[in-house]
Each structure stands twice: as structure tokens, then as C-alpha cells.
């Protein structure tokens, strides 16, 4: 494993070079956040400020979420004339983020030629909530990483606590099958060995032989905490629709409040719109302020997508989006026959 600080140094050099040589007008990376176990997205436009960039096990955000809005098509003819052409954008990508970018390129939301992709072979990122929970009663004042990739935190009473890496890695990282970006212009870090994750992926989506009523009750229980803040949707790089069905009022598909029926509608609709598109970055679950496993439904859908159609969203740039295509012999065992 290459130490984070070495990657950080090279990342800063790369960003500085790209900005200085005007290869990009904007560089998206991470900077230090005010709270431990976190980083904040950084919109960098000046080469001199490249030192603000950080690389650590806390670079969780999927920066691909910002790309569609940076390359948003002009709203009307007037805007088309007055809007300056978007600059080329450099962006730091982990394996999952790269899958998102691939999907965005496939869906023609971002132009590949305007992107400089700085991939980092990702060793897995820390789930801030897991880390906080692991500290129990104590609050961390600062956090870093040791040579083995374990997390070290300084807590309130001044003591230093080491949290074992496996203990605090995000679930989504434990399930990740392509931690090294499959698409990149620059690659930092040594490609990590892909984990054997299929069992982990299936286990998390398996409800065994539970009855429909039990499954429904479990879903309702999980969603009952939802406050409809839209964080899961807004954090998702695939949720770029200009007019989201969930916001439409003419007709209004989903009521505005937290009636459990509307909450369930919200999550079913959102999940289904991810079918064949979710790149399993975990942004939705991370964003949820209520700690809901927002991947609950999508995780299962992704397994189906792969089992039924052999499709892995974001795996390859030349793939056709699953639901934009069809085959005469697609499975249809689910159909009702007289």
C-alpha cells in the first residue's frame, strides 16, 4: 500500500500542473473539513492553491456528482449565446467515482474530451459514522492514518485511539469490486487487489425466505426515519434530471410530507430510476442524515441487473445503458400466462 501522503503530494503536483498549463480551468478534489473523519469537496481554480488538496481515507464524496451541473446544457437560446463555454475539468476519482463518470459519459451528461481524470487506486474509504460509533462516548478532535492504513483519532481527553481499518471501512468499500478507476488520464497509487466481494454483496441484499409481509414491515421500519430531505437524491451523481419526477406537481406523483406511503413511493421511485445505473458508490447512504441504509433497494436491483442481464453499470465505457437497449431473447419468465 502506498501511503496516503505520497499520493497526496503527487495529486497536488498533478493538479498544479494541470491548472498552470491551462489544461483544465477547474480542478475538483478534496480539502480538509472542519470535523474529523471527513473531507470537503474543493473547487480549485488557481494552481497556487493546489496545496489545499488532500488525500486521506476520508475522501468519501463522489465528486462526479458535480459534473453534470458543470456541463449543463443551456436552458434556452439566449443562455446558449451568453453562457461561456464550460472549462475543461480535472477531477479526482476513486474506483466507484470512475464508474459514475463512465455512466455519465454513456448517458451523454458530460463530454469525455472536457475531462482530465485523475484516478487514485482506492484502498477503501472510512465511514465517518462507523468511526464515530467505534469511539463510543468520546468525540474525535482530529483523525489521521497510520502506516498500516488504520485510522488514528485523537479524542477529547487527549488520548490517541487506533481504529482498525476493517472495522471502519464503509460497507460499500467492503463490497467494491473495482477499487481502481478503470478510466483515467493519470493514475496515482498502486492498483489494489480486488477483494472477493460477491458474497458480501449478496449477503447484504439477501432477505432469505422471508414472507412478503415481513419484508414489507422491514422496509417500512427502515424508511420510517426518513425526513424527505432529498439528501440521498442530491448526493447521487446519477440524479441529474432537470425535472425530477419526485418534484413534479403536474401531476404530483409523490405527496410532499413524510406519510409513510409517500416516503415509500419516494424510495421505490428513486431506486427504480437507478436500475442499471447505480454505480454503487454509496453516496446516498453516506448523505442520509438519519442513518437510513439508502442503498437497501438499489443494492438488490443491482444484483438483479447483473444476474438477469449480465450488466455492471459503469464497468466499461463502450457499454450501452441497460435500459436503453434490449434483446429479442431477454428473459420474460416473469410474464403472466393464462
Amino acid at each position, binding site marked *: 500500500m502506498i501511503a496516503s501522503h505520497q499520493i497526496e503530494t503527487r495529486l497536488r503536483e498533478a493538479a498544479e500542473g494541470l491548472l498552470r498549463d491551462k489544461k483544465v480551468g477547474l480542478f475538483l478534489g478534496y480539502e480538509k473539513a*472542519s470535523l474529523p473523519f471527513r473531507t470537503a469537496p474543493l473547487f480549485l481554480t488557481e494552481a497556487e492553491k493546489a496545496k489545499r488538496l488532500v488525500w486521506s481515507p476520508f475522501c468519501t464524496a463522489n465528486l462526479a456528482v458535480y459534473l453534470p451541473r458543470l456541463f449543463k446544457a443551456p436552458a434556452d437560446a439566449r443562455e446558449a449565446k451568453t453562457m461561456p463555454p464550460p472549462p475543461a475539468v480535472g477531477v479526482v476519482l476513486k474506483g466507484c467515482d470512475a464508474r459514475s463518470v463512465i455512466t455519465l459519459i454513456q448517458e451523454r451528461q458530460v463530454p469525455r474530451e472536457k475531462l482530465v481524470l485523475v484516478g487514485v487506486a482506492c484502498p477503501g474509504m472510512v465511514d465517518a459514522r462507523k468511526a464515530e460509533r467505534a469511539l463510543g462516548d468520546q468525540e474525535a478532535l482530529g483523525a489521521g492514518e497510520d502506516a498500516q492504513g488504520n485510522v488514528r483519532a485523537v479524542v477529547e481527553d487527549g488520548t490517541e485511539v487506533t481504529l482498525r481499518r476493517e472495522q471502519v471501512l464503509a460497507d460499500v468499500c467492503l463490497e467494491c469490486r473495482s477499487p481502481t478507476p478503470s478510466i483515467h488520464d493519470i493514475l496515482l497509487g498502486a492498483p489494489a487487489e480486488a477483494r472477493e466481494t460477491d458474497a458480501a454483496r449478496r449477503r447484504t441484499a439477501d432477505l432469505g425466505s422471508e414472507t412478503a409481509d415481513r419484508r414489507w414491515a422491514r422496509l417500512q421500519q427502515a424508511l420510517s426515519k426518513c425526513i424527505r430531505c432529498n439528501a440521498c437524491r442530491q448526493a447521487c451523481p446519477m440524479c441529474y434530471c432537470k425535472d425530477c419526477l419526485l418534484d413534479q406537481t403536474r401531476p404530483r406523483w409523490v405527496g410532499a*410530507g413524510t406519510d409513510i406511503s409517500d416516503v415509500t413511493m419516494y424510495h421505490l421511485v428513486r431506486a427504480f430510476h437507478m436500475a442499471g445505473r447505480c454505480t454503487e458508490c454509496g453516496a446516498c447512504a453516506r448523505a442520509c442524515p*438519519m442513518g437510513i441504509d439508502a442503498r437497501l433497494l438499489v443494492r438488490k436491483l443491482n444484483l438483479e441487473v447483473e444476474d438477469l442481464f449480465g450488466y455492471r453499470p459503469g464497468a466499461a465505457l463502450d457499454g450501452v445503458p441497460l435500459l436503453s437497449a434490449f434483446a429479442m431473447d431477454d428473459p420474460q419468465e416473469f410474464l403472466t400466462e393464462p
Partner: protein
Amino acid sequence: MIDKRIPYTDLDRLLDRLAKRGAVYAPIKDEAGEVVLAARTHDQPIVLEYRNFRLSPKALVLPQNQTLMCFKNGDVEEPALSDRETFLFGVRPCDARAMLALDKVFIDGDQHDPYYARLRAKVAVIALACTRPTSSCFCTSVGSGPGDAAGADVLAVALDADLLLGAETPRGQELLSCVADLLTDAPGAAVKEAEGQIRAAEDQIAPVNLQNIARRLRDAYDSPLWETASLKCLGCGTCSYLCPTCHCFDITDDVRGGTVRRVRTWDCCAYPLFTLHASGHNPRPTAKERWRQRIMHKFRYAAENYNHLLCVGCGRCIRNCPVSMDLRTVLKEVGA
């Protein structure tokens, strides 16, 4: 003023007494082991070790879904509301203060809001002073603090052996008098200890310079700061929905058959639809204007209109922002 004491062993009796009069909300552990403010049940012990609740208690006075009226067969029905009292035990001082801020908006103004007012009138707050603030707390900078009694009817401080209590309003006095038999006068040493504890908590909180913040924000309305600070905003409602003072709402109609329910739901200024006109025009078209509105509303417009900030420094927005936005950064930079 803190002058009474009750041993922890009698706390349940005190809450039982309150439960006879109305609903008691108290800190208990939920199924995930997180301490939440929830309706107290007998099988769940009260917990006193917690920083603050993930959700502020604002939903108890400003429910996320509030039925305003129902239309049925051409008639309009207003929802019946129970008149039972609601006791909030263990609310942190910041959240208690937030209720005062909401009062400014919904009650004190030229138009009082009957739905809020009815719920609010029933609520009595027994606040629990903070002993262990978090690194995202900045209550001391918005005129509050770990021992702030504003908004509390009774302020409590948890010491090792006892809970100290003091009435802060006539309502609080009435409450304590109805449980007077469970209370004894707090010895001076205990009161001193409580004060020391609060001061120690205060010292842990990093201040944010909010001197003349309304004026600084007025002068900084056109600052490039808003654009840079809002770039990473995802436009979700986490900050607003968790905020104890954010109160903006939407009114929509739910239809089912011949019945229509007009319902008020929380809304958020970070959403593009919040201000979108039917014509397509949007006075706050980008995250820049919307993020500026959020800060201006809390620290400038509210100061101008109510002489009261719409922020209590609880830090929920900081802790929960998916992209780690920290409004303290903007507040520090603005006009600095």
C-alpha cells in the same frame, strides 16, 4: 435560578407525576442504541448521557406534516387538537432557545399562527444544561450557552449524585411546585458545582465572531464569497430539516377520492422549486442565491425583523452536511 435538587432515584417519580398531566418526552435509547427524545414509556430507562439528539424537538411544535384542514363534500373541517400538556424533558439549552426563536416568527408577529400557537402553548420545556459540548457547537457565539435558560421553563443540571432544578418561568414554578414533595433545596455547594460545570462546558466551545453580523452581512450581500462558498452545496435539505429554527414550509393538497387534506410540510430554501414562479422565473436561481438566503435569513433578516437570530449554534447542519459545509467558515469570513 437553580435552587432545587432531586436524587436520580426519584427522577422517574417526577416524570410519572408529569405523565399524569400530559405527554412526557424524554431521552431514551432507540433500537439502534442512539439516544433520542421520544415519548417516554415505562420499560425504557431515561438516559442522561448524551450530547444532543440528532433531530431537534421542533417537530413537536411545527410538525413535519401538519393538517391545516380537510375538505369533504364541500365542507371544511379543522383538525381537532388535544389539549394535553406536553413536557419535554432533557432538551438541550440550544434547542430550548430555538423555540423562542420560532415564537418570534409564529406568535409574536403581526399575524399569529394558530396551529403553531396551539401546540406551543401546551409545551413545557425542562432543559438539561450541557456538560459535554461537541466540536461543532457554537452556542456561546449566538447569545446562548451550555447553561442558557432562554426558552426553558425549568433548567436542570446533572451532577454526579443529583439533578439540580430551577424554575425559569411562572410555568416552571408551577411545575416544580406540583412536585415540591420530591424536591429539596439545593445546597450552595451543589449550585456552585453546577455553575462550575456550565462554565467548564462554555470554555470548551470555540467562539465564532458574530459581532455586528447583521451589518456585516448587509455589506457583504454582493460579495464573491457566496458563489465560492455555495459551489459544493448539493441542494439537499439536510441542514434545514435538522435545524431547530428553520421553519419555512410548503402547503399542498393531498387528494384521495372525495377527500382533500390541506397539509403544511417542511420546506427548504436550498431547493430550486422553493421560489420558482409558475412563469418559470426564479428569483433565487442558483445555489449562490439560495445559500446566501439561508445565512441572511438566519443572521440578518431575523435580526432586523425580530431582533433575534434564527440560529442557536447547535451545529447539526455542520455535523450532518453531506459535503461538510460549515457555516462558521462563512460567518467568520464575512466582513472580516
